[in-house]
């Protein structure tokens, strides 16, 4: 092939230190062979086009809900994932060496893990100092002599690699507890292959799907021998965890149930999933909870993330956890100093891939070296606590250095010093041009029965600025896709299996997930109803207001009270200062539209809906999730219009109504008609029924002048999207009788009460119930009663005014139905969502 060289303009912008190693450019400034094709294509596309594709990729990632939560940052929750459009390229030849080195390291760490919780020969033979292991917070004595079935103890393993100035790849760190990043790597790949499809294809990039097949096989291999198809669950600390997106994503991709600690329970020596259909036995737990938090009985007793009694089930061999509890003991930089000797001992081989030079301060010679050379070393504790980072000696002041020397001398066995290396750079798109950035590559391995498999690629992260060597997601690094490619581009010849999801067996729905889905349904409906009513109210308030007309005033006040009732933002227009508020309602309406701190406001309800949806992220299709994202964007846009006032928000409200409807529609179309769908629709129907009943009581229990009621009917028909339907049906003036018929009794009107109750009856009949119980259950009884009241209701009688001047019949009949529906919500909660009490520790 012809050699392609960089245009002058590009080369001058791409500046690097003369002695640094760059992945793309060689020492003479020429593009390395395996980068030729990519760079040529990128430059031909031009910066504008690449930026455009980049934005497209970011949009895809954001819409897919790919996020990373940053602790301690007010805007840190669900921070969008950042992806650089330039992948890191690794040639096949080099990858061959990396693979050999990493697979050897995985085997070695596996043997060390088995030894440390087994015979501890390494300590007895003086190959590992006791102090290095026993002082490490990850050495869990309660896990002693516990073994997984099968060949391997270390199922998942990730290593962070970087290229040092000597051009070799070095291992900087080992992740052996619950390595994160494989899901992000997959998402990066999907986004890249969508926005740069031809580039991706022509570069003959290795596919990632096989790695996830290996993961499934690896998890199946450690399952207790019981059934052909073991039940695997993904244990997450919950939506607040930094990588929750990935937990949900992997669960959905692999077809496993996503659970939190209290979705599981220990009984009869086994672990069970609390699902809608009862307890389901769990065989394998893919854990993303740190091991210390997994069992409050034997590990950290303050943990609320674990399962009491879990460790004893593991001990009995009735559940397998990957990675096993205690595997954090390998996340110890001090081990690196001893790996070469251990490799000789266990494998009779030298290490193929070096670790970064490491001095463990628990030895006197090493301690002296570290203390003497502190300014040019990196200081790390042997056991990293959350939020702790490596300390760079060269960044410390004289006083800080002295303080660190004291700290290390007081407890030398707890620290290591590591060589400070300048990593190689790779091109990143920054500020519209390509710039060199230091980068780190995380590689992922999984153990199958026949050995370890390496993901052909990985998660590359590059520094946010040139020269920065501390590269962590918490510190704002930018990720890259990683392409392992042949040095000569080849035509794609063999059809490869796509990176799409693998089919899994249907999972029982955890009770908590059902609970969340139910509230997604209720809050989505509440938000939609609230917006519709507020929108109708604004119209009436601003278009031809007849402030001196008592009929107008009367209907306006009733409408405002309906707003309070529908949004659930009491006291509002019912409160002690209601009279004042009713006179000048704009401020209160503005609060309801924009103030997230006000309970029942639109942002509050939408936040609740989004939080519930996020907690069951694994259950939504990507299109549905994109709509959730849009809903959040739109309410945020409405909030930004606060200063411009209510009138200017109408467009946002129109959009929100459309998007919320789209959400309902998509959910209806893209969810299988399982228990999840049932609870979503039950939530929606229940909320719509409750809203309607409360609206009609507030509006008509106290009769008003006919003119006022006509106005009210018009607004309510407008807000419930029934105005056109009404006119088609009745072609009449706006009167209460046909209005009540349409909204209460019409079985074909999807917004009528009769319709909601009929759907609820259908759904409740399909819910899982105890086998053999043929009697009518509590939910069915409540709905049957509501249905009877509604069907024997006489519209004339409902409208009649009693001696006390009220529509007693309407108020009491609707009041009864309201009570029954509210009771239904509580009964469903008690029957299907109860998680029981929170555990407490005895001491």
């Amino acid at each position: 092939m012809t050699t392609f060289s960089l245009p002058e303009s590009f080369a001058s912008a791409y500046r690097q230190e003369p002695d640094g190693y760059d992945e793309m450019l060689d020492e003479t400034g020429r593009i390395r062979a395996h980068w030729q094709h990519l760079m040529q294509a990128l430059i031909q596309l031009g910066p504008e086009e690449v930026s455009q594709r980049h934005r497209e990729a970011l949009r895809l990632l954001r819409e897919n809900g790919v996020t990373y939560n940053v602790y301690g940052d007010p805007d840190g929750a669900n921070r969008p994932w950042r992806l650089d459009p330039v992948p890191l390229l690794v040639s096949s030849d080099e990858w061959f060496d990396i693979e050999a080195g990493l697979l050897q390291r995985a085997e070695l760490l596996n043997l060390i893990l088995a030894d440390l919780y087994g015979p501890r020969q390494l300590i007895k033979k003086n190959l590992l100092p006791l102090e290095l292991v026993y002082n490490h917070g990850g050495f869990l004595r309660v896990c002693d002599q516990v073994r997984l079935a099968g060949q391997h103890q270390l199922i998942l393993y990730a290593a962070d690699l970087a290229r040092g100035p000597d051009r070799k790849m070095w291992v900087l760190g080992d992740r052996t507890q619950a390595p994160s990043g494989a899901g992000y790597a997959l998402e990066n790949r999907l986004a890249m292959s969508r926005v740069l499809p031809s580039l991706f294809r022509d570069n003959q990039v290795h596919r990632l799907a096989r790695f996830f097949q290996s993961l499934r096989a690896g998890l199946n291999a450690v399952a207790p021998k019981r059934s052909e198809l073991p039940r695997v669950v993904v244990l997450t600390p919950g939506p607040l965890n930094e990588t929750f997106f990935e937990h949900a994503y992997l669960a959905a991709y692999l077809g496993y149930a996503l659970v939190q600690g209290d979705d599981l329970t220990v009984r009869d020596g086994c672990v069970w999933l609390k699902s809608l259909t009862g307890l389901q036995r769990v065989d394998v737990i893919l854990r993303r909870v740190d091991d210390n938090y997994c069992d409050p009985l034997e590990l950290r007793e303050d943990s609320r993330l674990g399962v009491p009694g879990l460790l004893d089930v593991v001990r009995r061999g009735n559940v397998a956890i990957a990675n096993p509890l205690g595997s954090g003991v390998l996340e110890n930089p001090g081990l690196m100093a001893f790996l070469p000797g251990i490799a000789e001992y266990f494998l009779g081989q030298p290490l193929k891939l070096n670790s970064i030079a490491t001095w463990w301060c628990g030895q006197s010679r090493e301690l002296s070296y570290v203390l003497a050379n502190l300014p040019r070393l990196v200081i790390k504790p042997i056991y990293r606590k959350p939020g702790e980072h490596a300390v760079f000696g060269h960044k410390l002041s004289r006083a800080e250095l002295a303080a660190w020397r004291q700290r290390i001398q007081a407890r030398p066995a707890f620290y290591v010093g590591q060589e400070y290396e300048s990593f190689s750079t790779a091109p990143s798109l920054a500020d519209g041009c390509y710039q060199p950035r230091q980068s780190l590559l995380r590689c992922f391995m999984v153990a199958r029965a026949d050995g370890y498999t390496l993901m052909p690629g990985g998660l590359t992260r590059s520094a946010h600025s040139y020269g920065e060597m501390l590269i962590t997601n918490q510190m704002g690094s930018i990720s890259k896709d990683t392409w392992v490619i042949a040095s000569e581009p080849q035509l794609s010849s063999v059809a490869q299996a796509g990176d799409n999801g693998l089919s899994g067996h249907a999972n029982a729905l955890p009770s908590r997930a059902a609970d969340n889905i139910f509230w997604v349904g209720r809050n989505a409906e509440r938000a939609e109803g609230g917006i519709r009513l507020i929108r109708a109210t604004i119209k009436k308030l601003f278009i031809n207001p007849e402030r001196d007309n008592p009929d107008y005033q009367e209907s306006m006040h009733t409408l405002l009270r309906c707003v309070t009732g529908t949004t659930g933002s009491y006291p509002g227009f019912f409160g002690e200062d209601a009279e004042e508020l009713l006179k000048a309602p704009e401020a209160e309406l503005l609060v309801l539209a924009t103030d997230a701190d006000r309970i029942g406001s639109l942002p509050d309800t939408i936040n609740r809906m989004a939080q519930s949806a996020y907690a069951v992220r694994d259950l939504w299709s990507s299109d549905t999730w994109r709509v959730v994202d849009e809903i959040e964007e739109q309410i945020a846009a409405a909030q930004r219009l606060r200063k411009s006032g209510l009138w200017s928000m109408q467009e946002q409200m129109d959009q929100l109504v459309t998007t919320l409807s789209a959400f309902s529609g998509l959910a209806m179309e893209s969810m299988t008609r399982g228990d999840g769908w049932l609870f979503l629709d039950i939530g929606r129907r229940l909320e719509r029924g409750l809203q309607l009943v409360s609206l009609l009581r507030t509006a008509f229990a106290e009769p008003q002048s006919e003119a006022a009621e006509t106005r009210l009917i018009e607004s309510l028909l407008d807000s419930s999207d029934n105005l056109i339907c009404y006119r088609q049906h009745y072609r009449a003036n706006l009167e209460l009788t046909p209005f009540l018929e349409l909204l209460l009794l019409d079985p074909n009107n999807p917004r009528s009460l009769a319709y909601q109750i009929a759907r609820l009856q259908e759904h409740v009949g399909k819910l899982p119930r105890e086998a053999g119980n043929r009697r009518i259950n509590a939910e069915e009884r409540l709905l049957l009663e509501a249905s009877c009241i509604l069907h024997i209701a006489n519209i004339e009688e409902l409208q009649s005014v009693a001696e006390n001047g009220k529509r007693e019949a309407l108020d009491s009949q609707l009041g009864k139905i309201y009570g029954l529906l509210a009771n239904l919500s509580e009964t469903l909660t008690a029957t299907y969502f109860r998680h029981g009490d929170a555990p407490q520790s005895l001491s």
Partner: protein
Amino acid sequence: MRYRITHTTAYNYQQTVGLSYNEVRMLPRPSPNQQVIDSKLQISPAPCDYRVRTDFFGNQVAWFSIREPHLTLQVTAVSEVRVIRQPGQTDLGHGIGWEAAREILRSETGESTLDARQYTLDSPLVNADPDLAAYAQASFAAGRPLPEAIHDLMQRIHRDFTFDPEFTNLSTPLATVLEHRRGVCQDFAHLAIGCIRSQGLAARYVSGYIETLPPPGQAKLVGADASHAWFSVYLPDLGWMDFDPTNNQTPGDRHIVVAWGRDYSDVTPLKGVIFGGQDHELSVSVEVENLGL
């Protein structure tokens, strides 16, 4: 000497507990000086799942769970144990110097030394900080035989500290005990362990019992009628040797060992996670009967 020990722990809950998981370390472990003739747990209500295993430190652990709704959990351990008087304790002035012992712990890798070495390290409740080292220093004169140094340390703790059950609880830090010079047997054991570890030596925490009613003519010991605690020191030439700083003595045949570990957190008699219950009251009783020789 033979003893029968009845150790009862009861939790009375304010509200019903529907589910409970527990771990018990109340079954005495056998040791060179102690033969366990019989030992069993009575649990009420009856557990639905019950297993006994040996933990990392060699202690007997019973694991059980209860699914029957209950307002009271009662765990009673009844054990019959023969205690043999520990030999070689009378002559404290012999044995190797404490620095030599430290050197052996650091360098030798024989099985028992390696096992002892883990007890030179900090543990969850005992951090051998400079304040403890400073307190310990007076007992560790250069070249002093190790048993004598430890005996001196024990005597000083007994003299300097006041036994005061009102002052500390399970979560009182060692620094507070050292500052106020008050505590109970558990605090004194932790204190001594921290002092010994600050010198690079190995010490472990021992939980157990002492005889309730003294033989005629002898005084009743402090810490009777409840769980007791003391410490043990590793002597490279002689093995482990026990010291009871609360009673200022080296245990003879009136101390019954239940379990040992790095500190109290390794040998908690009864641990649990419960669902329900709200507040609870705890009552503990221990009766140690001397059955004669």
